[in-house]
């Protein structure tokens, strides 16, 4: 029996009787990170990295959860588990599973660049590597993120000079904080929408961020003018956004590499900034593990696995319920 199996409830380790990022209710769940397709509600017991504990408590409410440090080994029914940095969002991990000399690693989601808020990705040697491949196509080739942050600050400064408010949108956990961390507070004030503000508050205990001000009913439109507003993508075109006055809209996501996706999103400014590995990143990560077997889970799984086979890996695809296939259905981009 393989060390990890793909069952209808999730990725299962039969020897330990635990699940990794399960999508149905289970007794014991090891969780890679706080995004809703990986950390779901209803498990009896959660085990995750320390930094992810407050995140999933915030999202899931009252749960039974144990926190672990990176690299800390713990045994469940004789199987050794440990969490290792995935660099995806704060508190995100890869999960290493070792039993009778065999090592498997499940990546959850990951990226190789240091985003300034998450502990950077560390390769973990293994025999079998279960990897995401959200952007597993050679057309995805990320620019240096420092340049993207510069573009964002330039865009903000230009808007500010024109008296226009910058509405920058991204996912509430991870993307918004990454954007916030690299905004230049010398340009102006940073306002937030409720959802990302709450998550940012949770993360302030771990990470140093520029100041933010929550937009409430009392907030005056004049105070916001020319400043930066951080919000989730759902506000695009909403009554909430209309109240901001004259705005320029920006959206940060890896999908913005596609012209078609940019045009559908219909924002004024699209920034290609992703918390997932690009094509080269995925290949680099796989090589660094020195693995023999690769299992691709969500993203362009078939194409990516076929390419890996062509390059000599024993690669296959497994179906999971982690969302990834299009810019429309994705939760975490």
């Amino acid at each position, binding site marked *: 029996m393989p060390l990890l199996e793909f069952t209808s409830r999730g990725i299962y380790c039969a020897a330990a009787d635990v699940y990794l990022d399960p999508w149905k209710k289970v007794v014991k769940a090891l969780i890679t990170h706080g995004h809703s397709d990986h950390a779901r509600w209803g498990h009896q017991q959660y085990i995750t990295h320390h930094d992810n504990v407050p995140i999933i408590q915030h999202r899931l409410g009252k749960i039974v959860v144990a926190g672990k440090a990176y690299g800390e080994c713990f045994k469940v029914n004789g199987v050794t588990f440990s969490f290792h940095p995935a660099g995806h969002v704060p508190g995100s991990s890869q999960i290493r599973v070792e039993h009778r000399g065999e090592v498997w690693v499940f990546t959850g989601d990951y990226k190789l660049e240091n985003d300034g808020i998450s502990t950077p990705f560390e390769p973990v040697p293994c025999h079998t590597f279960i990897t995401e491949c959200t952007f597993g*196509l*050679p*057309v995805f*080739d990320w620019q240096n993120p420092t340049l993207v942050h510069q573009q964002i600050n330039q865009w903000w400064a230009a808007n500010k000079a024109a008296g226009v408010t910058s509405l920058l949108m991204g996912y509430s956990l991870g993307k918004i904080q990454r954007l916030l961390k690299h905004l230049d507070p010398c340009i102006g004030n940073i306002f937030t929408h409720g959802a990302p503000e709450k998550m940012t508050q949770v993360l302030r205990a771990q990470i140093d961020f520029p100041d933010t001000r929550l937009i409430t009913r009392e907030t005056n439109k004049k105070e916001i003018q020319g400043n930066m507003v951080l919000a989730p993508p759902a506000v695009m075109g909403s009554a909430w956004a209309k109240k901001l006055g004259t705005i320029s809209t920006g959206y940060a996501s890896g999908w913005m*590499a*596609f*012209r*078609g*996706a*940019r*045009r*559908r999103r*219909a*924002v*004024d*400014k*699209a920034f290609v900034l992703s918390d997932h590995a690009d094509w080269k990143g995925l290949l680099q990560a796989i090589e660094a593990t020195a693995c023999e077997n690769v299992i691709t889970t969500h993203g*362009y799984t078939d*194409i990516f696995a*076929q*390419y890996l086979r*062509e390059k000599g890996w024993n690669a296959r695809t497994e179906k999971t319920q982690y969302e990834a*296939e*299009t*810019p*429309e*259905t994705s939760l975490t981009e």
Partner: protein
Amino acid sequence: MKAFAQLIDALDSTNKTTQKVDLLADYFRTTSRTDALWAVALLSHRRPSRPVTTTLLRQWAAEVAGLSTWLFEEAYHIVGDLAETIALLVPNTQSHSQESLAETIATLIALKNKEEPEKKAYILARWQQLSSTERFVFNKILTGGFRIGISQKLMTRALGQALELDENTLAHRLMGQWSPENTRFEDLLITPKAADQLSRPYPFYLAYAVEDDFFDKQSVTEYHIEHKWDGMRGQLIVREGQLFLWSRGEELITNKFPEFAPFAQQLPSGTVLDGEILPYPKGVIGNFNDLQKRIGRKTVGAKLLRDIPTRFMIYDLLEWEGKDYRNEPLWKRQQQLAHLFERYSEQELPWEHSNVLQFDHWDAVATERNRAPEMRSEGLMLKKRDSIYAVGRKKGAWWKWKSDPKTIDAVLTYAMRGHGRRTNLYTDYTFGLWDEGQLVTFAKAYSGLTDKEIREVDRFVKQNTLARFGPVREVTPQLVFEIAFEGIAASSRHKSGVAVRFPRILRWRHDKKIEGANSLSDLKELLP
């Protein structure tokens, strides 16, 4: 090239029309006249002919990117645009190129007659010299079809601002088959020479579909009613003994309709007529398929001319004795047109006069509309009596009131990824009808669903794929859609034996199971 690529980038970075116009106007003001002319040409879909096939471009791009052909093709299917795929896959380098837009295109034109290795060397070198956006623009010029979400109307408005010229005057000057290869910016747009005007058509005036509250708001007595002819819109020009026939796509099609040659001898110089080219097999108006047989041929043989003669159904007069009549009211233009017919009635020209009808009640108009099949028209045109002949699609004076489309319930059988704004989504669908227990393909349709429905169907396609054929997925027959179409004709070229015109999705029949979809014989019953 750099400035033009920056323009495209900036245009892509805003959704506000006024800003787009400003950006374009700025570009026209600051760039060289030769570059500006090429920009105008590209944005009005005039492009240099393709120096290399797209097959070769794909091969070369895969090679430079170090990818197997299959992987390149997969990437292309997902990106949905060849120019963009290549721009994304070719590795970036640090070198630069200072070649202007006009210089780049001149090189591409010269490249056409070179040997393949030389073409390859040039294109590969350019890919590496250009930034990602420049590369995208370069590839767009190379692959043709420069559709980037800027309408010709928007471009003309910007040009008007930059040159401080009237937009409609410019729209007229931009008509016809010119190319930067044979004209200059000044000669085309600023001080046009009379000799160049000889063949130039006027911009077509286009109608809007009637809106729901139209009949409550409008008074029937102010309208001229005509049948809406189902042929090919054309503009017939006679100047200095020469005949020019233009299609709405601004193509000169004089040679395709040799039977119209007598117009040149019979009509006086300075006559411009707006009408519909209609097929007349067996002496009566045929259907669109008949006309298609004529359009499709490079040369029109004697037999085809005999089998499917065409006539010009005239409904408007734009120029008479060299005078521009477009600003005269419709009733006056039609009066003049009636005179014309009277005066030349003995010449037996291949023309018809589209009858102008007048009614006292919209009810009577509706009854007339029901006669469309018998009149072999598509419905009615409603034109304000006092309307001028405007430029392009302008709301307010000309309306089309088409016959209700025919509809049929069909099953989704295949789906293909879309292009442009629909990149990466399954938006191009194939539909089947029942025939002896099998679903037989009868039409493809792309439009009619809302964005939300498109996303739902996209998800369905991804989760219910039976087989993949490159970009096409065969799906489990499960979804039923009501498909609307305009015309229907028997066809030996289609597997179903039937060709339908303008098929589109009317609605998603959530209430129907596939067993309840229509059959091919149901469809054939609709044949005239």
